[in-house]
């Protein structure tokens, strides 16, 4: 039984080796935790006041750093911006007000109904036909010469109402009517809505006759 002490010694050596390994492992574990200052898994993490406060990372570079930092300029780009021509769409937008002014819609003529209503509500003269084209308006007088106007009612066809209308047009004397030509008589005829009444009644001849009568009276 000489092998019994040898087995015991071997067993003791293995046991001592195992215990030494356990001690070394435990110490290594403690050392590693102390080195990294990390608690074991499952242990509560002690929070310092700084850790409890919310960490706000500013996204703006401090002024000192910004002032100290050199501006980053790409070597390939020119230092100053090059003015590029505006794209066509921008020109179009810039010119849009003019184009709008040019393409401004023409006023749409009112409907016939509205025109009829306007005419119905309009306090107009009894007959307001369209004035004839062309310049045939008689030369008006602001007031009768000498403050005395001729009695235009002596012409057949002219009543008090027509006389006041002629006076409103600046016609106060026979010589004015006698000086009318065809265009003037047509203008007045159209203005008064007589439909050729002046020519039919021959106001111009009547006026010339009255002038002749007045001339003979004055000469006598």
């Amino acid at each position: 039984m000489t092998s019994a002490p040898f087995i015991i010694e071997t067993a003791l050596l293995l046991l001592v080796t195992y215990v030494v390994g356990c001690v070394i492992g435990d110490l290594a574990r403690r050392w590693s935790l102390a080195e990294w200052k990390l608690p074991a898994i499952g242990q509560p993490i002690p929070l310092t006041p700084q850790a409890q406060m919310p960490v706000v990372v500013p996204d703006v570079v401090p002024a000192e750093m910004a002032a100290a930092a050199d501006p980053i300029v790409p070597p390939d780009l020119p230092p100053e911006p090059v003015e590029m021509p505006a794209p066509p769409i921008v020109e179009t937008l810039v010119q849009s007000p003019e184009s709008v002014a040019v393409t401004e819609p023409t006023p749409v003529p009112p409907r016939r109904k509205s025109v009829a209503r306007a005419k119905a509500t309009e306090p107009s003269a009894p007959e307001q036909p369209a004035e004839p084209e062309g310049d045939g308006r008689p030369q008006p007088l602001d007031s009768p010469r000498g403050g005395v106007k001729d009695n235009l009612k002596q012409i057949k066809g002219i009543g008090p109402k027509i006389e006041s209308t002629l006076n409103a047009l600046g016609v106060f004397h026979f010589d004015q009517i006698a000086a009318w030509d065809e265009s003037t008589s047509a203008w007045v005829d159209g203005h008064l809505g007589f439909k050729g009444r002046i020519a039919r009644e021959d106001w111009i001849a009547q006026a010339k006759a009255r002038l002749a009568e007045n001339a003979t009276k004055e000469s006598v």
Partner: protein
Amino acid sequence: MTWGSVTYLVGFYWPYLSAVLVIGFLTGWLSRPGSAPGQRTGKPYD
């Protein structure tokens, strides 16, 4: 047990002794609660 016998055993069985040493090391490393990889601490939802 003499120093001679210990030296002989270590010289002869050093591979086994080193293996036992590694096993002991791991046992001591993992003996602390919660230090084992994937080991639960016993807390719910841990």
